[in-house]
């Protein structure tokens, strides 16, 4: 008897695609929607898991753009510590699309948040990237100058990008109630002072995130009408939730909403692709094997597998490992772990 399922390939059936296979045998999980060529100018941002993606694009010889590279006179380890080379500019982790939109608004001069500089113990921090400079800046002027330079570089990005890769991280965020500026970390954790009259917890909802993503896409394609987008959802659970929920359902809510937004965007736009890194690590058929023992941090084997599947689907080879002494300031490409701002929240748990 003919019906639409009779012509479906094996990957469409749970038994043949999932339950009859071990997690590492699963195949065909991702089919690229469009080609990513070595010539395409690729920029990336997102939650800390996105650092893996950026690193792999670079290592595998793609045209990964870095608009704010490390000064060449510093070594790779120092560059990594000072958050150079993690993404396409030194903006640190961007956990929400609202934060991403506001970053480009700031670079465009259309938004100037009230939060300028946070001072903590005579050191100065950029509220929108408080962890990029270990120990903060020496002076307020230095912090402001570095930010001006940073935003100048970010301002160059969109018109020189053919593929923008963004990893959705969290729905939970903190914003300044006076101007709705979204912060990457809660004030009073890495830096700054938490004032409940100024800062408010925000748990973004589906419609808000979708709207923010559409706003970003529109804005980005104003700079390059042919720009394509690759979206992923970070498989890294919340370190802590600021809701009254248990952190597990809070995580599932967060990831589900983000995953749904990605699906919606992909169904709406043919220039949007979604890569299921979240599913390849966090879904139950994977049995948690790609997490470390805390069931939060993704093990390097998990990262490698996720990346291998992605690049194999795109017909790319293995990462390029250059022999000999590592060049200076080649970014975090030689580093191992990624830098996740939210991990500090573990300190506040009992």
């Amino acid at each position: 008897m003919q019906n639409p399922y009779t012509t479906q390939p094996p990957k469409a059936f749970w038994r043949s695609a999932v339950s009859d296979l071990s997690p590492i045998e699963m195949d065909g999980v991702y089919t690229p929607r469009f080609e990513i060529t070595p010539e395409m100018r690729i920029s990336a941002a997102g939650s800390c898991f996105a650092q893996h993606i950026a690193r792999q694009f670079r290592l595998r010889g793609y045209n990964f753009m870095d608009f704010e590279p490390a000064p060449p006179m510093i070594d790779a380890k120092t560059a990594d510590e000072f958050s150079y080379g993690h993404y396409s500019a030194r903006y640190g982790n961007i956990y929400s699309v609202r934060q991403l939109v506001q970053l480009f608004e700031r670079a465009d001069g259309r938004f100037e948040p009230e939060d300028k500089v946070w001072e903590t113990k005579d050191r100065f921090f950029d509220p929108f990237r408080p962890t990029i400079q270990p120990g903060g800046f020496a002076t307020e002027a230095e912090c402001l100058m570095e930010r001006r330079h940073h935003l100048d570089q970010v301002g160059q990005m969109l018109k020189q990008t053919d593929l923008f890769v963004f990893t959705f991280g969290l729905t939970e965020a903190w914003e300044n109630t006076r101007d709705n500026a979204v912060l990457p970390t809660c004030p009073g954790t890495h830096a700054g002072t938490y004032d409940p009259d100024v800062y408010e917890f925000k748990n973004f909802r589906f419609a808000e995130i979708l709207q923010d993503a559409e706003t970003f896409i529109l804005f980005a394609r104003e700079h390059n009408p042919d720009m394509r987008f690759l979206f992923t959802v970070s498989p890294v659970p919340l370190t802590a939730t600021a809701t009254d929920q248990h952190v597990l359902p809070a995580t599932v809510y967060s990831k589900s909403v983000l995953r749904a937004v990605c699906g919606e965007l992909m169904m709406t736009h043919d220039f949007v692709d979604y890569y299921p890194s979240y599913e390849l690590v966090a879904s139950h058929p994977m049995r948690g094997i790609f997490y470390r023992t805390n069931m939060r941090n993704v093990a390097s084997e998990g990262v490698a597998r996720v990346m291998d599947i992605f690049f194999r689907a795109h017909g790319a080879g293995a990462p390029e490992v250059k022999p000999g002494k590592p060049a200076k300031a080649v970014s975090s490409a030689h580093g191992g772990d990624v830098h996740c701002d939210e991990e500090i929240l573990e300190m506040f748990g009992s």
Partner: protein
Amino acid sequence: MTLYICGNSHTRALRAGASLLEQEEGADPMVVFPLGTADNEAEQFSKIENGKVVLTNERFRRKLKQFFGFDNFEPEHRWGICLGNHNARIFRDEGWLDAAPSWLNLKGKAPVSEALFARIVEADQIHIRNFMEQLLQTGVRPFVISAPWPLRTHPAMTETGIAPEIVKAIDTRARVLFAQWLSERRISIVTPPAETADEDGFLLPQFAKGGDDPYHGNNTYGRLMMRRVLQHEAQYAQTRTKVSRSA
């Protein structure tokens, strides 16, 4: 106590200066010899072996034996070390064409923050600092003799095109950082005389070796520096006398 002075190529001017002071003023004899060029400082050149600091750089090791007669650094000897403040390794990097120390507030250049700059200096001086630490650990109380101010004719500026104000800012801050590091370890440093610098802090031509050498001080400079070294040592001797009397 014999004063021994060794170090990189800037030691040559000190040697000439010491010679002049001995001839002209009858200064006590000193043993002053360079061990090799500053490039040798860019890699590990020393280690502790059997409780004494030995030089692992072959050239350095050979020169220490040849000129001083030593295989290692003994605590009973007084050593002046002419290493450090040779900041050309830092400021000659072409990266400074596009970057500048943040405190200069130069538009159009990627700012290098104070913290990042401190890392650059630390990385540059790591083997010198290790050597100093090793000397302290083995009971040697060294003092440091600074390299001269940079010359305006240094190819970093005349050929590479790095702005003199950037070179000067790098050199000045690197000297401050090194002095702080030494001070934390109670190691004193003899710095170049102020009168050898022009209004922007570069070595005046009359104190430069000249010719096709845009790096080193001349004999006049060496004599001025060695006079400061001897003053420093006189003060050191006085302090030691006071300490031993009070003990």
